[in-house]
C-alpha cells in the first residue's frame, strides 16, 4: 500500500515537473513547512519560558531545512540541521541552564514607554512595505550567474564545494580565521578572573614579623562571582 502511494506520488510529481507546473506534493510540502516555520517563530516570541523558546526555535530551523531541500539545496539543509539545530541551539540551552535564566518573564509588563505599540506599528509597516516592494519593483536583474550555474547535473555538494574552494577561497580562509578568533574571544570572556596574590604569601623568616598576630584577611582573597 505504501509502495503504491509512493509510486502514485512519484508519478504525479514526474508528470507535473515534466509539464512545468508545480505539483501537488511540492505545494503541500511547502505549505506544511511554512506552517511549521511560522508557528515555530511565533512560539519563540511568545513563549514565556526561555527553554520553550529554544525548542520552538529548533522547530523553525527544521522547517527551514525542509524548505532548503525543496529548493534542491540538500547540503545546506544538512548543514543547517547539524550546525544550527544541533550546535547553536544546544549552546543556547547550555547557557540557559548554566545561568539559571529560565525564570519566566512577565510578558504582559512593558517598562519602556511606547515600545510595544511602536514595535507593532513599525513591524507591520515594514512587512507591508517589504511585500509591496516585492510586488512593485524588479528585485532580480536576471544577471548571468557569476559563481557557477545551478543547472548543471553535478550534485549540490559538488557545486558548492567547487565554488567555495576556487572562487570564494579567500573568504573561506578568512572565515576560518574568524572562527579561531571567536573561540579565543569566548574563552577570554568566560574565564573567571585570577585570584589576587598578595605579598604575605612569601615566608620571610627574619624575626621581624610578629607571627603571633592573627593573619589578616588580605592574605587570601578570591573574587566571588
Amino acid at each position: 500500500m505504501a509502495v503504491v502511494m509512493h509510486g502514485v506520488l512519484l508519478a504525479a510529481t514526474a508528470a507535473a515537473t515534466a509539464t512545468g507546473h508545480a505539483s501537488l506534493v511540492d505545494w503541500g510540502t511547502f505549505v506544511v513547512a511554512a506552517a511549521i516555520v511560522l508557528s515555530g517563530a511565533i512560539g519563540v516570541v511568545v513563549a514565556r519560558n526561555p527553554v520553550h523558546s529554544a525548542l520552538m526555535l529548533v522547530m523553525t530551523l527544521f522547517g527551514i531545512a525542509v524548505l532548503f531541500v525543496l529548493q534542491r539545496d540538500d547540503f545546506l539543509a544538512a548543514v543547517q540541521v547539524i550546525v544550527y539545530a544541533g550546535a547553536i541551539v544546544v549552546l543556547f540551552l547550555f547557557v540557559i541552564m548554566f545561568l539559571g535564566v529560565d525564570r519566566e518573564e512577565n510578558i504582559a509588563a512593558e517598562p519602556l514607554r511606547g515600545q510595544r505599540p511602536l514595535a507593532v506599528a513599525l513591524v507591520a509597516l515594514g512587512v507591508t512595505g517589504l511585500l509591496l516592494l516585492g510586488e512593485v519593483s524588479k528585485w532580480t536583474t536576471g544577471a548571468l550567474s557569476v559563481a557557477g550555474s545551478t543547472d548543471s547535473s553535478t550534485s549540490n555538494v559538488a557545486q558548492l564545494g567547487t565554488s567555495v574552494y576556487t572562487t570564494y577561497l579567500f573568504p573561506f580562509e578568512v572565515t576560518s580565521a574568524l572562527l579561531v578568533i571567536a573561540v579565543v574571544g569566548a574563552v577570554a570572556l568566560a574565564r573567571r578572573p585570577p585570584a589576587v596574590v598578595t605579598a604575605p604569601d612569601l615566608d620571610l623568616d627574619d624575626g621581624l614579623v610578629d607571627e603571633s598576630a592573627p593573619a589578616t584577611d588580605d592574605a587570601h582573597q578570591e573574587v566571588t562571582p
Partner: protein
Amino acid sequence: MTGATSALNGNISGEWYLALAAVLFAIGAFGLLIRRNVLVMFMCVELMLNAANLTFVTFANMLHDIGGQVLVFFVLVVAAAEVVVGLGIVVAIFRRRANATADDFHLMKG
C-alpha cells in the same frame, strides 16, 4: 518580481519563499523589540538570520547562481561564531545577577 520566469524551486515560484522569509524576518524583529530576556532576544536574531538565509537560497535558484548558496554557507559559519561570542558575553555579564534582563543595563544612558 515580474521578471522571475523559470522557477526551479520545486516548481513553486520564488515569490512565495520570499514572502515567507519576509514574514519570518518581521516576526524575528518583533520578538527582538518586545522580549526582555536576553537569550530569547538572541534567538530572535537567529530567526532573522534564517530568514535571510532562506532569501539567499531562493535567489540562488531564481538566478541560477551558486553564489547565493555559498553566501548561506558563510552566513551559517559567521552566525555560529557570533553566537559563541555573544553567549560568552552573556555569561560574563550575567554571572553576577542571574535574573537580569536586557533592561537592567542602561549605563550608556545619555
